[in-house]
C-alpha cells in the first residue's frame, strides 16, 4: 500500500510547491531570473550588505524557503526532496544576494550539500564574488563532541541562520558575519527523536521501518538512523534524555540565558510539542538557566515524519541582539 499524499505527479512536487509558495507570498519572494529553484527575498539584498544564501533539500519546509526575507536569508537554493540543490541555483542565489560585500553560504553539514555548494562557490569565485561558508552542525546525536565539525545540521538552523541574517541586516562586514555565524553554530545544540517515518513523494513508501512501540533517539531529519532504538517513553523522560545531552554539551553557567526551540518533525501535534516545552522549562529552571525566548512549532520538518527535537542556543549579549533583531519572512516573523 502506498502512503497517502495530496500530490499530482510525485516528480513535480517540488516545482509545484514552489509555484504555490510564490503565489502565496508575492510580497516576500520571487524566483531569481532564469532559475526555477533559486528563491530570492524581495526586500533582502542591497548594496553594501553581505548576502546570506541558504539552502538544501526540500521536504523540511518552512526550512529553507520560509526563512528568506528581510533580516534573515537573502536567497535559498532548493533541491529535490532530501537532496542538496545542484550548483546552478546556488550560483543564481549568490548573484541575486550579492551586494558587493561578499556572500555567506549556510547550510546543514551533509556530504551532498558540501559538494554542491563548494562547486557553486568555485563558480562564484570566477564571477569575483567572495564566498564564505558556515555549515551548521547542531545535532549532538550525530557525532561525539570531539568531532563536532562532522555533525549534521538540523533544527538549530533556525537560530543559526537567524543570527547570521541579523548580522547581515545590520550591515556588518563579511568577517563579522562569518564570526557571528560560527559562534551561533558553536553555541547551538539539538537533539531529536523520531516515532514514525515519512515517505518521499516519488516512492510513497515509508523511508524507514520502526516498531509500533519504538522510538529512534537522535534520528536525522531525513530519517537517517540515530544513536539507538528504544521503547517509546513518556514525554518527560524523552525530554530529560534530550536535555541531559544538551546541558552537558552546553556547559552553561548558572544565570546564563538560552533560547529554546521545540520543533516538530511534521505530524507531531502542537499539543505534544507544548507538553515537551513544559518539561524543557522545568529542566532549564532547575539548571538555573534563564529562557530568553521560546519557539514551538514545525520549523524544520521531515515531510510527515512523527517526532520532535529540542534545540537550545546558549546566548551571549551579541547573539541575544541578533535573535531579537526583526525579520520578516514568508513563513517566519520576529522582532
Amino acid at each position, binding site marked *: 500500500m502506498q502512503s497517502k499524499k495530496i500530490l499530482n505527479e510525485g516528480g513535480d512536487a517540488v516545482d509545484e510547491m514552489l509555484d504555490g509558495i510564490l503565489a502565496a507570498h508575492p510580497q516576500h519572494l520571487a524566483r531569481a531570473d532564469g532559475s526555477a529553484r533559486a528563491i530570492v527575498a524581495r526586500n533582502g539584498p542591497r548594496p553594501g550588505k553581505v548576502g546570506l544564501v541558504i539552502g538544501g533539500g526540500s521536504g523540511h519546509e518552512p526550512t529553507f524557503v520560509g526563512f528568506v526575507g528581510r533580516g534573515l536569508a537573502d536567497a535559498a537554493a532548493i533541491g529535490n526532496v532530501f537532496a542538496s540543490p545542484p550548483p546552478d541555483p546556488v550560483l543564481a542565489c549568490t548573484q541575486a544576494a550579492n551586494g558587493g560585500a561578499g556572500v555567506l553560504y549556510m547550510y546543514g553539514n551533509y556530504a551532498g550539500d558540501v559538494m554542491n555548494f563548494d562547486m557553486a562557490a568555485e563558480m562564484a569565485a570566477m564571477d569575483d564574488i567572495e564566498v564564505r561558508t558556515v555549515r551548521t552542525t547542531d545535532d549532538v546525536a550525530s557525532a561525539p563532541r570531539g568531532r563536532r565539525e562532522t555533525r549534521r545540521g538540523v533544527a538549530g538552523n533556525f537560530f543559526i541562520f537567524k543570527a547570521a541574517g541579523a548580522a547581515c541586516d545590520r550591515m556588518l562586514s563579511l568577517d563579522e558575519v562569518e564570526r557571528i555565524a560560527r559562534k551561533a553554530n558553536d553555541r547551538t545544540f539539538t537533539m531529536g527523536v523520531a516515532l514514525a517515518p515519512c515517505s518521499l513523494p516519488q516512492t510513497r513508501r515509508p523511508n*524507514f521501518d520502526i516498531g509500533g512501540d519504538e522510538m529512534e533517539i537522535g534520528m*536525522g531529519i531525513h530519517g537517517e538512523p540515530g544513536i539507538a532504538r528504544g521503547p517509546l517513553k513518556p514525554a518527560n523522560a524523552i525530554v530529560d534524555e534530550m536535555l541531559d545531552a544538551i546541558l552537558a554539551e552546553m556547559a552553561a553557567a548558572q544565570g546564563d540565558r538560552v533560547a529554546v526551540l521545540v520543533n516538530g518533525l511534521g505530524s507531531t501535534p502542537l499539543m505534544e510539542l507544548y507538553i515537551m516545552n513544559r518539561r524543557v522549562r522545568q529542566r532549564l529552571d532547575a539548571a538555573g538557566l534563564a529562557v530568553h525566548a521560546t519557539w514551538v512549532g514545525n520549523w524544520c520538518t521531515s515531510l510527515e515524519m512523527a517526532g520532535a527535537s529540542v534545540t537550545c542556543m546558549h546566548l551571549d549579549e551579541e547573539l541575544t541582539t541578533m535573535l531579537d533583531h526583526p525579520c520578516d519572512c514568508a513563513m517566519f516573523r520576529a522582532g
Partner: protein
Amino acid sequence: MATDAAAIRAMFGTIATDVEANKDELCRLDGVIGDADHGIAMSLGFAAARDAAAALPDDAEPTAILNAAAKAFLNAVGASCGPLYATALMRAGAAVKGKTTLEDADVVAMVAAMAAGIRDRGKAELGNKTMYDAWAPAAQAATDAAAAGLAQAMQAAEDAARKGAEATKDMVASKGRAERLGERARGHVDPGAASAVVVIEAMRRALA
C-alpha cells in the same frame, strides 16, 4: 569494436533503463542507512543524462556528449550522487578529448577516469563505504584486463564492482550520510556502491 558517439548515446539509454529498473531497491537500501532517495536521484540523473545526450546533434563528439550528460545529471539531481557522477562523466569526457571514435583502451581509460573523478570530488578513500569502493576496484580490474580485450575488461570491471559493493557490507561508513551511524551501518550494503554495479554492468552491456 570501435565505440562511436552513437554507442555512447546508447550507453546512457542502457544505464538509464537499468537504474530505473533498480530504483526501488536502491531507495530501500538508502532507507536503511541514509535517506531513502538514492534510487530516485540516480534514475533522475541518468534519465536527464540520456536525454541531454540524445538532444545533441548527430555529429557531436563523445566528449561533448559526456559533458552534456554530466551537466544534465548534475542539474537534475544535486544530492551526493550529482556532483560525483557529474565529475565522473566530465573526467570521462576529458579522458577521450578530441576523439571521434574510441578504441577499447579509450573505454577503459574512461572507466578509470570516472573512478578518479568520484574519488577527487568526494575525497573518498577505499574502505569509506561509498560508491568509490565499487568504482575503484572496477577501474583497477578493467585496466589490468585491458589487454584481453574490451569484453573481458568490462566483465572484470563489473565483477570487481560487485565484489567491492558486497564488501561495503562489512564496513563502517566514514563518508556520506551513513558516516554518523558508526557500527549500526555494518551489515548493510552502501547504496551508492550498489548503484555503481548497476551502472558499470549497463556500461559493459552497452559498450562491450
